[in-house]
């Protein structure tokens, strides 16, 4: 197939083409030509006002629901949602039924990606069934293609298990991905603990529950790294904090990075768009974990993105069928979908990052953490590209949702910024106008 992207601004930090408006011609999955006013015949042409093009976007936190929970999302609908959001590669959490804890379960996900546009990088469980007790065979799973290890929706609680995981992963350059939450402090919690939770009578989840886990985990990381047995892994990060949500977390992780600890972190896009005050509506589509925090936390998260403390922005895409969400708030499941809204949610709420920096957080940022090379926009390279409009405004409605589940907090909002087309693995997809 021959594809022509007409007059798109190239967004790729460090490239000599960065910021230039060029035509890009792709033939048989490879970038064949880059130039101005290319005179070529193409099967597909992407052409509209104000286009940009970057390396294909990477979302490193997607709740795969297949196998086992296909009524929420299957691999096909997940792929469609990713494409609609301009995402060409995803890393999935292991919380499926069965859990991703065997070679076969890793390969099931990888193989689906190999035959489709969106590449899937499975993260495997740290402990069997993500119960936090007995370890999975992490070396073997790594060999099978697991890019990282995490118990996903179940933050590791036991300090000894946590410590041994870090020690064990360090020997082969693995990485632990963990969402910091001390669950003893969040039992029955529904939302951020603050004046809003007090006013609406909802059990709160204090920021402390995240902060003290970040503090503990950093201490354990330091203990591992300072061991005479420790070899620096071949990646920058040994411990990755997922979905951080508090100002104190940002500060502590920033300090740990300054000390040279091999740590990284991400934030979920929706966390940058809402505060706990939005919950006066009791809308179960605003129920997430970590919960929407106070404005000062949201400000600190943006600041952390700008100063480089936060490496990546993720969707934390977590589909739930209507029966799990159209309920009383405290009975509804935690989690929202986000693949389709990753970029628009960031771009619409952004006041601090440059367009280039936003793209960094959804391309090189997550790939560097997982040790995956970032696609280059150069002649001869495999085409792994996202074409987007940085300033197109559009209305996000329930009807426009591609994912099988409709649990988005953004329904009804006007967004700025939209993915227009994606190219990867010799395949092409374009939005309808």
């Amino acid at each position, binding site marked *: 197939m021959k594809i022509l992207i007409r007059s798109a601004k190239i967004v790729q930090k460090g490239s000599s083409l960065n910021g230039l408006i060029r035509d890009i011609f792709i033939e048989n999955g490879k970038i064949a030509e880059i130039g101005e006013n290319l005179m070529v015949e193409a099967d597909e042409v992407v052409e509209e006002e104000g286009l940009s093009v970057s390396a294909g976007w990477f979302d490193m936190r997607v709740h795969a629901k297949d196998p086992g929970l296909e009524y929420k999302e299957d691999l096909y609908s997940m792929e469609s949602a990713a494409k609609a959001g301009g995402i060409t590669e995803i890393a999935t959490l292991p919380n499926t039924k069965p859990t991703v804890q065997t070679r076969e379960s890793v390969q099931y996900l990888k193989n689906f990606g190999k035959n489709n546009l969106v590449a899937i990088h499975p993260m495997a469980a740290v402990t069997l069934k993500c119960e936090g007790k007995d370890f999975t065979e992490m070396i073997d799973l790594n060999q099978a293609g697991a890019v990282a290890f995490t118990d996903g929706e179940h933050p590791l609680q036991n300090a000894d298990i946590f410590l041994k995981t870090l020690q064990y992963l360090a020997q082969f350059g693995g990485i632990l991905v963990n969402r910091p939450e001390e669950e003893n402090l969040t039992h029955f919690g529904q939302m951020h*603990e603050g004046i809003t939770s007090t*006013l609406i*009578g*909802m*059990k709160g989840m204090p920021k402390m529950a995240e902060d003290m886990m970040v503090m503990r985990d950093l201490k354990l990381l330091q203990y591992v790294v300072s061991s005479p047995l420790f070899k620096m892994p071949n990646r920058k990060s040994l411990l990755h904090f997922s979905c951080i949500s508090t100002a104190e977390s940002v500060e502590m992780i920033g300090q740990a990075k300054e000390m040279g600890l091999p740590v990284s972190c991400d934030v979920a896009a929706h966390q940058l768009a809402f505060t706990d005050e939005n919950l006066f509506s009791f809308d179960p589509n605003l129920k997430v974990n970590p919960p929407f925090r106070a404005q000062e936390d949201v400000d600190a998260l943006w600041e952390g993105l700008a100063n480089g403390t936060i490496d990546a922005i993720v969707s934390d895409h977590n589909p739930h069928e209507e029966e799990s969400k159209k*309920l009383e708030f405290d009975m509804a499941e935690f989690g929202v979908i986000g693949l389709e809204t990753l970029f628009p949610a960031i771009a619409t709420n952004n006041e601090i990052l440059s367009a280039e920096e936003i793209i960094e957080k959804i391309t090189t940022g997550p790939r560097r953490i997982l040790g995956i090379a970032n696609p280059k926009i150069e002649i001869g390279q495999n085409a792994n590209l996202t074409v987007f409009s940085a300033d197109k405004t559009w209305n996000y409605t329930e009807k426009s949702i591609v994912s099988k589940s409709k649990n988005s907090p953004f329904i009804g909002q006007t967004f700025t910024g939209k993915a227009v087309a994606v190219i990867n693995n010799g395949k092409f997809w374009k939005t309808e106008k």
Partner: protein
Amino acid sequence: MLSTRHLLGIKDLTLEDIELIMKTAQEFKDVLNRPIKKVPSLRDVTIANVFFENSTRTRLSFELAEKRLSADTINFSASGSSVKKGETLLDTVNNILAMKVDMIVMRHASPGAPHFLSKHIKANIVNAGDGTHEHPTQALLDSFSMREKLGDLAGKKIAIIGDILHSRVALSNIFALQKQGAEITLCGPTTLIPRHITELGVKVSHNVKETLKWCDVANVLRIQLERQQIKYFPSLREYSLYFGISKQMLDELDKEIVLMHPGPINRGVELTSDAADSHHSIILDQVENGVAVRMAVLYLLAAQN
């Protein structure tokens, strides 16, 4: 006219709404003292009392209020009903509404459940208690009962004593009393007082004797053992020793004090029997006023249609 179609909470009411409800409740209280207690105001209005949580007095009080207003009433309670078969709240209520019901009085264990419902159905909704959030008619009848004793509540000192954390009565009372200009002190063990509550402009004390000395009214709350999913204090014995109220404590005060309790009382825990039954107590007046206040609420909401 009220400013709202539903009574979901006191937080959303204006002072004018509260005054109107108080005035209307007084009229209904007068009616209730006549030989013929029934008025035809809500003839041909059908009200469903939908209780997903146990209740005796609130449900009886609502039902009586409805019958005194000549409304047709049906009762639904969670035990032995479709809820146990896994039906959703929305389905249950829509099924009831399909039988041409005009108003829903609902009690539910989830905070915001009536608010959720109000977004999906057309009938007027009266919140009869939603989890640890609000219990608006209780706060209204509490205010009505206080006003009977003390007149205007502006500047009056009201203490709310006990399990504030799990209490919907406390939150609704705070909203109602603040709108009427009263001063509020909350008193109880630290673990049962929400961390951020002082941001609402209330005082907090952990000393019951001091609090009793300060206040004009002591509204004592029930220890909500059924709503405490984890441990908050060591034992009922210790609670009653350090946070319970006895008649002796009330008699030692050099002033008159009004003692209230939304019921049901854990006798010997938050109140000793001799305190609950003393001349300070207006607990049974609260129950009596509850019917008149609920009549007022139902009447005023029905008038919105």
